[in-house]
């Protein structure tokens, strides 16, 4: 390695270390400032909570196990709705791709449904489906499904026409073309779409839990705010932050895995 290359690598490392250090600094100083402000009564810790109060609440709820059931419910609903979105999204996009007239008929409706603020549907869904997990899952699905269908369908129809011609020269039917060409060619779009969707599912589940739930982090937030247990609220928000980071990392890993095997 030449001296210049060494210097470059060193500089690169230095930069990464500095960035990480500042990230950590920002985090710790935020936590410290928050705690100090609460202790010195600069802010009202009853309203704003404080890191130590949150930790105390968390430990207490860990001990009686209640926090785990809330987290499990929220995560379970998120994963379930995510799985349904993946299946329904790809399935619907496939049907639209197979039958062009159908997609031409439905396109304006999909666009309207996609641009609609879907959280507006949640109260209605709860009236229809009842105060239960079903309503929450449907709410979460309604948030992401239309965008997913449009997005994946666009990827499907963007398949290189010359490659489709190639498949036709082999006598391939539509389903063969889909399996061997369209689906693998759209895999990247599908995965990046799923990366967005897992987050959207969490959003949908929390909205659903706001309105209809006896359990879950969304329920904890809305209930906590009603009874002025701000520690619950802020703790739940922090747990949601951690969950979304983990979910993002998981999809990131799934993406790398898929890229490796395909």
């Amino acid at each position: 390695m030449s001296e210049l290359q060494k210097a470059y690598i060193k500089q690169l490392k230095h930069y990464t270390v500095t960035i990480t250090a500042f990230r950590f600094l920002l985090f710790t100083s935020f936590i410290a400032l928050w705690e100090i402000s609460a202790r010195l009564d600069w802010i009202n810790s009853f309203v704003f909570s404080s890191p130590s109060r949150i930790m105390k609440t968390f430990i207490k709820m860990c001990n009686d196990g209640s926090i785990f059931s809330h987290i499990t419910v929220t995560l379970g609903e998120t994963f379930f709705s995510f799985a349904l979105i993946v299946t329904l999204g790809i399935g619907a996009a496939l049907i639209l791709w197979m039958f062009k007239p159908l997609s031409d008929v439905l396109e304006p409706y999909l666009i309207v449904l996609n641009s609609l603020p879907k959280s507006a549907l949640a109260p209605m869904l709860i009236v229809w489906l009842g105060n239960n997990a079903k309503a929450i899952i449907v709410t979460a699905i309604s948030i992401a499904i239309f965008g997913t269908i449009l997005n994946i369908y666009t990827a499907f129809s963007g398949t290189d026409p010359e490659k489709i011609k190639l498949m036709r020269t082999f006598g391939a039917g539509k389903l063969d073309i889909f399996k061997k060409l369209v689906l693998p060619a759209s895999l990247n779009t599908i995965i990046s779409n799923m990366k967005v969707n897992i987050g959207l599912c969490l959003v949908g589940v929390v909205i659903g839990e706001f309105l209809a739930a006896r359990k879950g982090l969304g329920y904890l937030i809305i209930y906590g705010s009603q009874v002025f247990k701000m520690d619950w609220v802020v703790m739940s928000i922090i747990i949601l932050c951690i969950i979304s980071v983990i979910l993002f990392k998981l999809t990131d890993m799934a993406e790398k895995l898929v890229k490796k095997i395909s």
Partner: protein
Amino acid sequence: MKNILSLSNVNYSYHTKEGETVALQDVNLNIEEGSFVAIVGPSGCGKSTLLSLVSGLAKPDKGEIYVKNKPLSQSEVRIGYMLQRDNLFEWRTVYKNVLLGLETRKELTQKKKQLVNNLLEAYGLGNFKNAKPSQLSGGMRQRAALIRTLALEPDILLLDEPFSALDYQTRLEVGDDIYKIIKEQGKTAILVTHDIAEAIAMAQKVIILTSRPGTIRDIIDINVTTLEERTPFTTRCAPEFSSYFNKIWKELSNE
């Protein structure tokens, strides 16, 4: 020699909202078994359309296509089609790409796999079976595409400007390679190109199409004297080459 392919009074038009475009008009053509024929013409003259019709991807509006004296739809003769770009699938290895046609036709037998392996070995891709297409050079990619077509053991090979996406140097090399492969395999080949020199270099017969609506303007037999065996490369060096070039050039520009 026997005709393997005959077109009689073939007509074809494209339809769009803006109107009708007659791509081919009254095309009559006979192609002998085992021959290498090139079709040249100005861009948009329906050269590629002709191949689509012969491959059965499109049906003529009028006229008939016969393969070994049978209508195309009833024919058992197999037709291989090589497109402009190699269209290798990046998510498959070279080997898997080459098997794509057999896989789609559900003809993936042990015997065919052996044939493909032999072809890969014979044409310098034996060590690249498990490589991704992006790891191959332009010329190797085009050879892989040809093997993918040959794997189906076609009697007639349709080549739709298969070298146009390559740089000039590679183009000459790949042209030479592919010519040799086709001759070795004894296939009938129809090459569509807008490159006059390429047409003369590779074909025994050059068919000149007029601009839209495409119809046959002239058919020129290429007879060259070469020192060694005839290949595209030796043909380019033949004394007759430039007179053929001028002749075809004139006919194409006298539109």
